[in-house]
């Protein structure tokens, strides 16, 4: 009973944070002068152009998802399961683009192709062709691919850690490593791969800044235009409605692909033992291919930022102009990540154990909120919370934290659910029979066993809270801007040196705490064997 009451309370809190603002927007979008009307929806959804744009977004999101999976999963296996040289350095480098707004990466690529250096090295014809390709679908795919590649890569690595190597060793007795990967390892980490596919697809589908900058018209443009040119909140909400259908389709696809597949793994073990993959003559080729990919996808655009920000003065100015925002960003991200971890843990538990009848709705809502344009959620939060009675929320940074909770619980919830799925139900059951209450079981059995999931969830929550601009931009109280918001506000006519320095600082403040936690968590799991 306690379990049900507690989980219901968590769900209610989550719905207040995330769903209620959207319902407010929805209610406003279907009413006019006190009467029910679907005019906003008719206007937006009956246009043929919307469906063309939907096609563009589907093409973009599908291409990015397929490419990131094709490259990210093998990279995850390479870095997580083998003794590939410099793998930690490679992981570190590949993750960097995820920590910066893709819009800034797009600007960096544009600067790179538009600048004189590359034209001098490769000739003006190359830069002309490259620029033509950059401004369109190929450019959008390139930027979003390099930004979201770390998602399947890191999730593959994280999920690999929970694969019992004894299963792989047993497989190796009858098969080569290809067979082991194909028949044992990959099927076991399939939930992680599908989770990464879903995240990449939804993030790419909802992306507006990059396609807008690179002039490729996509579906979110309508919602944006209704906000920016017409100030029409109703039409903007209506334009975001198909995303609910899309979320359903994505969830249905995931359900279909995981059907009949048990994700429970009998035990945890030391997964740091590398798979005895012998690359043979391919080792050098593989190494240079990975190094080349890092150079092209990460070093080149990052070099633009590093070169632009070169010099002590740039960084001194960056700290002077963005120091306050940096501190606030860290504070809010830590708060946000901690709350996201807690909420994600309990919603993940609910989804995994199906403890309440409406568990599937909770999963749907969190993922829908993740897919929803940040502007719709942001305006919803303003509309709901901006009242004299709730000024203690709206006029303080709590509104930013609520925004994080609404937008990113899907991440921590799904990560927790995946980890919780690997805890044998018998453990909690044994504790229950021994007389331990639900809270005790959660604190002493489930949470410790899911600690890696909590760590991974916290890192994901921290990274996404820290880089958020879509919601924060619309709700931050005056004088409480965060570093990514400040980078964007300074971008208009601001010095490129200052912007570049702020971006580099942003990367550093994201990597350092996340890296510390990663290091703290690794020895723990390496020592422990159940």
């Amino acid at each position, binding site marked *: 009973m306690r379990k049900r009451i507690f989980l219901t309370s968590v769900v209610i809190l989550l719905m207040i944070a995330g769903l209620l603002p959207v319902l407010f927007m929805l209610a406003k979008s279907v009413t006019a002068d006190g009467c029910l009307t679907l005019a906003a929806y008719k206007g937006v959804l009956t246009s043929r152009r919307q469906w063309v744009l939907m096609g563009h977004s589907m093409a973009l999101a599908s291409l990015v998802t397929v490419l990131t999976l094709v490259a990210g999963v093998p990279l995850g296996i390479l870095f997580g399961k083998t003794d590939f040289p410099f793998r930690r350095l490679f992981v570190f480098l590949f993750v960097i683009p995820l920590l910066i707004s893709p819009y800034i990466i797009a600007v960096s690529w544009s600067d790179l192709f*538009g600048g004189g250096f590359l034209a001098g090295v490769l000739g003006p014809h190359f830069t002309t062709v490259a620029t033509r390709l950059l401004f369109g679908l190929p450019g959008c795919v390139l930027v979003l691919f390099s930004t979201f590649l770390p998602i399947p890569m890191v999730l593959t690595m994280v999920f690999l850690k929970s694969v019992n190597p004894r299963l792989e060793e047993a497989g190796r007795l009858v098969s080569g490593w290809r067979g082991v990967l194909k028949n044992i390892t990959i099927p076991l980490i399939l939930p992680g791969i599908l989770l990464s596919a879903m995240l990449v697809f939804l993030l790419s589908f909802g992306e507006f800044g990059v396609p807008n900058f690179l002039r490729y018209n996509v579906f979110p443009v309508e919602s944006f235009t209704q906000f920016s*040119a017409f100030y029409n909140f109703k039409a903007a909400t209506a334009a975001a409605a198909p995303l609910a259908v899309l979320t359903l389709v994505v969830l249905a696809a995931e359900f279909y692909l995981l059907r009949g597949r048990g994700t429970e793994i009998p035990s945890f073990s030391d997964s740091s033992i590398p798979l005895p993959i012998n690359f043979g003559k391919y080792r050098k080729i593989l190494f240079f291919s990975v190094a080349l990919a890092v150079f092209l996808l990460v070093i080149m655009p990052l070099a633009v930022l590093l070169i632009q920000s070169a010099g002590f003065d740039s960084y001194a100015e960056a700290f002077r102009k963005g120091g306050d925002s940096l501190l606030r960003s860290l504070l809010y991200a830590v708060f946000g990540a901690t709350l996201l971890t807690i909420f994600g843990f309990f919603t993940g538990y609910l989804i995994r154990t199906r403890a309440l009848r409406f568990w599937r709705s909770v999963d749907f809502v969190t993922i829908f909120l993740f897919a929803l344009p940040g502007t719709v959620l942001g305006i919803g939060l303003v509309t709901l919370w901006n009242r004299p009675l709730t000024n203690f929320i709206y006029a303080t940074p709590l509104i930013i934290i609520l925004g994080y909770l609404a937008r990113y619980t899907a991440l921590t919830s799904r990560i927790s659910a995946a980890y919780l799925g690997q805890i044998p139900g018998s453990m909690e059951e044994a504790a229950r029979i021994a007389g331990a209450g639900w809270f005790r079981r959660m604190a002493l059995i489930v949470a410790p066993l899911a600690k890696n999931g909590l760590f991974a969830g916290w890192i994901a929550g921290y990274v996404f809270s820290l880089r958020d601009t879509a919601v924060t931009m619309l709700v931050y109280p005056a004088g409480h801007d965060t570093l990514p918001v400040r980078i964007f506000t300074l971008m*208009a006519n601001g010095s490129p040196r200052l912007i570049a320095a702020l971006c580099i600082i942003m990367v550093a403040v994201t990597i350092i705490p996340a890296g510390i936690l990663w290091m703290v968590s690794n020895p723990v799991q390496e020592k422990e064997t159940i």
Partner: protein
Amino acid sequence: MKKLLYFFVIVSILAAGTFLIRYSKTKTGRKRTEQTVVVYVSEDQVFSEPVLKDFEKETGIQVKAVYDTEEAKSTGTMNRLIAEKNNPQADVYWANEPIRAEVLKQKGISAPYFSPNAKGIPSMFRDKDGFWTGFSARARVFIVNRKNVKSGEMPKSITAYTDSRWKGKAVIANPLFGTTTSEIAALYTVWGEEKAYGFMMGLKVNDVAVSTSNGESADFVAAGRYFFSLVDSDDAVNRIRQGKDVVMVYPDQKAGEIGCFIVPNAAVLIKGAPHPETARKLIDYLLSRETERKLAFADCAQIPLHPGVEQPPELKPINKIRVMQVNYAEVAKKMVEIQPFLKGWAEVL
């Protein structure tokens, strides 16, 4: 597991401590509540922040600002003001053009205020009911690439866009956003429906390229990709100061021509502002001659509207420019009216 617990406990304590310290500072500063002003700003932060910092220094009034971004086409603060209508958080809106100020007036979000410092600002740049007052303006000018266009052949009128001589050689920012929308709406009020519509269709016939922003248009022209573009004067001055081989041309300056469209900043008092006294002080400060002088010499190179304010040599004084005679309230109304057409126009491209 202990490490995990320690980590979360330490991190949470640190975060909570910092939050409480910061928040309690705000609380203990309650006696200074009246010494605070909240301003939403759509003028670029790099130009507006120094002015607001100077205001803080000179008056001791703490300024809390929310700035806009280029990515959101500088409309984020407008959306917030509209969404916050029933419980306003802002005291002042510093708009980077008067059309938004007019929209706020029409939506009942702003309040009238006649600042004593508005004296001397030409009446066409002020709302007659005091709902907004213009200051420090940009002009809508041509930026022309000097390598591509000889000095004797410069485009002199906005109708150059539809002249077959320039077919495929000109670029304009997306008319659905920003000052380009305002200018098109202004043309509708000055030329009338038929001529303005013909002009818009002429842009298509003449293969005029569409960029995402005025800044991008200016960059395209500076790089020689297009010969000329209509941009804001600050975009042109900025490229000239960067040493690009471009020149700035004020369009339609001959007798009988429509003149150059002027886009002043606008200071707006928000209805139900939490700090009305400090809000008025800030508006007075923004409308002062000194602020206009600072904005003229800043990189945004904005034209002072008070007569006789010192300004850099590359800017023409407002009284030397043939100004397009428009009523900004009518322009705002026309803008709302033509936006569906502009949306369709932009979508077909």
